[in-house]
C-alpha cells in the first residue's frame, strides 16, 4: 500500500496529460460550437483548418528561429502564434467570402453548408500537404520541463517521478486565459452581445440593426484564434502531423456534442469529459493498482480497458450514448 506513489503516478500519467489534452479539445470544441451556434452548421473543415493554421505558426517559428529570435524558456511558437492567427483569420474570412457567403445569399438549407465545409476541408488538407508535407514536424523549443521526473524523485524521495512538461503547463494556462477572454467578450462587449443576439434570434437581430455579415466575420476571426491556439498547443504537447489534426475532428465534435452544441460552457465541459475518458480507458492501471493493493493481489495483466490504438472508439461510444440518451447534450445546447 503506497498512496503517495499511487497519487503521483495518477497525476503523472492520467491527470496532467488528460487536463492538457482536455484543454486542447475544449478550445477546438469552442470553435466548432461557435460556428454551429451562429452559422448553423457543423464545420467539418475545423480539423484541417487547425492543421493549416498550425502550419502557419510552424513556418513562422522556423523563420524566427533562423533569425535567432527566441522566447527564453518558453517555446518560440508562442511568439509566432499571433501571426499564425492573423493569417488563418484572413484565410477563414476569404473562404467565407468565396464559399459560404454564396450559400447564405441563396438562403440554402444548413445541411448544404455542412457539405460545402467538407469540400473546404479537402482544400485545406491539400494546401497543408502541398506546403509543409504530410510528415511529422518538430517546432518545440525552450525549456522542456517545469518539473522533471528526476528532480521530483530527488526532491521528494518517492519512487515515482512526476514530470510536468512546459507544453502542458502552457496549454493549461493558455486555455484558461483564452476561455476567460472569450466569455468576457461574449457577455460584456457590444460585439459579443450582438453575436449572442444573432445566434438567439436572427430575424430580430436584423430588425435591431445588427449587421449579419459583420457578426459572421467576427465569428470567423474568433474561430481562427481558437483553432490555431488549440492546434499549436496540441503540436507542442504531442507532435504536428496534418493527418492527426484531421483525426482530432472526432474527439472535438464529440466534446461539442456531449456538452451541448452551440453552448460554449458545454464545449469546455465536453472537452474534459472526452479527454479524461480517453486517457483513463486507454491507460494501463497496473502500476497504480500495484501500489494500492497488498502485494499478493498485485495484478498480472496491464489492467488496461482498451489499447491506445482504440482511443477514438472512446469518443465514438460517448458520442453515441449522448446522442441516444440526451441528444441536446449536458448543457442543453443550441444557443450561444
Amino acid at each position, binding site marked *: 500500500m503506497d498512496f503517495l506513489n499511487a497519487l503521483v503516478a495518477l497525476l503523472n500519467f492520467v491527470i496532467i496529460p488528460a487536463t492538457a489534452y482536455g484543454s486542447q479539445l475544449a478550445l477546438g470544441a469552442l470553435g466548432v460550437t461557435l460556428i454551429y451556434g451562429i452559422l448553423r452548421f*457543423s464545420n467539418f473543415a475545423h480539423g484541417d483548418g487547425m492543421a493549416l493554421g498550425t502550419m502557419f505558426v510552424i513556418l513562422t517559428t522556423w523563420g524566427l528561429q533562423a533569425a535567432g529570435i527566441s522566447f527564453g524558456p518558453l517555446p518560440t511558437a508562442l511568439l509566432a502564434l499571433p501571426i499564425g492567427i492573423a493569417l488563418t483569420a484572413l484565410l477563414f474570412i476569404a473562404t467565407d467570402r468565396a464559399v459560404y457567403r454564396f450559400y447564405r445569399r441563396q438562403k440554402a*438549407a*444548413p445541411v448544404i453548408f455542412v457539405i460545402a465545409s467538407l469540400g473546404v476541408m479537402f482544400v485545406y488538407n491539400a494546401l497543408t500537404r502541398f506546403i509543409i508535407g504530410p510528415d511529422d514536424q518538430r517546432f518545440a523549443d525552450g525549456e522542456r520541463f517545469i518539473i522533471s521526473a528526476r528532480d521530483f524523485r530527488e526532491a521528494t524521495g518517492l519512487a515515482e517521478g512526476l514530470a510536468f512538461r512546459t507544453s502542458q503547463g502552457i496549454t493549461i494556462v493558455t486555455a484558461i486565459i483564452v476561455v476567460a477572454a472569450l466569455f468576457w467578450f461574449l457577455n460584456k462587449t457590444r460585439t459579443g*452581445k450582438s453575436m449572442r*443576439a444573432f445566434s*438567439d434570434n*436572427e430575424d430580430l437581430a436584423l*430588425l435591431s440593426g445588427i*449587421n449579419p455579415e459583420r457578426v459572421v466575420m467576427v465569428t470567423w476571426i474568433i474561430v481562427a484564434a481558437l483553432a490555431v491556439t488549440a492546434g499549436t498547443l496540441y503540436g507542442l504537447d504531442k507532435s504536428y502531423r496534418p493527418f492527426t489534426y484531421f483525426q482530432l475532428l472526432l474527439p472535438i465534435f464529440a466534446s461539442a456534442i456531449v456538452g451541448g452544441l452551440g453552448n460554449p460552457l458545454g464545449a469546455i465541459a465536453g472537452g474534459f469529459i472526452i479527454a479524461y475518458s480517453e486517457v483513463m480507458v486507454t491507460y494501463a492501471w497496473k502500476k497504480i493498482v500495484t501500489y494500492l493493493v497488498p502485494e499478493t493481489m498485485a495484478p498480472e495483466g496491464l489492467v488496461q480497458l482498451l489499447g491506445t490504438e482504440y482511443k477514438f472508439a472512446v469518443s465514438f461510444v460517448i458520442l453515441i450514448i449522448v446522442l441516444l440518451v440526451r441528444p441536446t447534450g449536458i448543457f442543453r445546447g443550441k444557443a450561444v
Partner: protein
Amino acid sequence: MSDYSDRGNKDASITRTDNMPTLTPAHPESGPSHYVGSGGPFLIGDGMTGGYGGADILHDCTISVDKGEIAVIVGPNGAGKSTAMKAVFGMLNIHTGSVRLNGEDITALSPQARVNKGMGFVPQTNNIFTSMTVEENLEMGAFIRRDDISQTMEQVYELFPILRDKRRQPAGELSGGQRQQVAVGRALMTQPQVLMLDEPTAGVSPIVMDELFDRIIEVARTGISILMVEQNARQALEIADKGYVLVQGRNRYTDTGKALLADPEVRKSFLGG
C-alpha cells in the same frame, strides 16, 4: 426558401435548424430614397399592391398614420393585415404604390435602413432574445445608436416598471405579457418616430391586454406614431385615432376608431354585433 432542402435530415448534430430566420426583406440591399415634399400623413403606404412573389396579396391598399396618432388595422383572418404592415416595413415586394415617411419616398429601402430612418417594428412572435437578459434585450434594441442609451432605458423602465425588477433575468423566463413589454421596450430603444406592432396582445390575458393598450397610449402621447395590427378589434378601435378594416388585401372601411365602432355595418360584419 431556395430549391435546396434538407431532404428530411433532422440530425441536430449536423445542422441547427431551430428558430430559422424567416424574414424575407423585399430589398436585402437598400436602394435610394428621395424627398417628395412634405404634406400628407407622417407615414403612408400608398396604394400598395404586391405579394411574396406569387399572386398579389395586397390590392391598392393604403395605410397611413399621423404624428402621435394610433392607427389600427383590423379585419378577418387572412385579410392581409400583417402583410400590409410588413409591406410598409419593406418585407414585401410591392410593385405598385409607394411608402413615404415624413415626406421621403422610402419604398426601395431595406428594413434595416428603415430602422435607421426612425421606424421600429415589433413582430408578432419571436420578438425577444430569449437567452439574453431583459437589459441585454434593450441594449440590442439600441444597437444602431452610438450615443448614451441610459436615458432611453430609464424611460422604458418608467413605462414598464416590472422590467426594471426583472432586468437581470433572461427574457425567455418571463410571462407572456412581460415578454411583450420587453418586445415593445426593445423597439423603443432606437427612439423611433413610428412604432409598428404586429398583434401585440396575441396570447395575453384580457387584464394584461388592457394594461398593454394603456402603455401604447402613453407611448403615442410622447409623439410617437403607432401603427398596429390587432385581433381584438373592438378594444383596439376604442383607442385608435384611425381604423382600417381590410378584407382580402383591400381597404374596406377607413374612418376614425369611434366612427367605425359606431358603424352598424362594421359592427355586424367584423365586431360580432
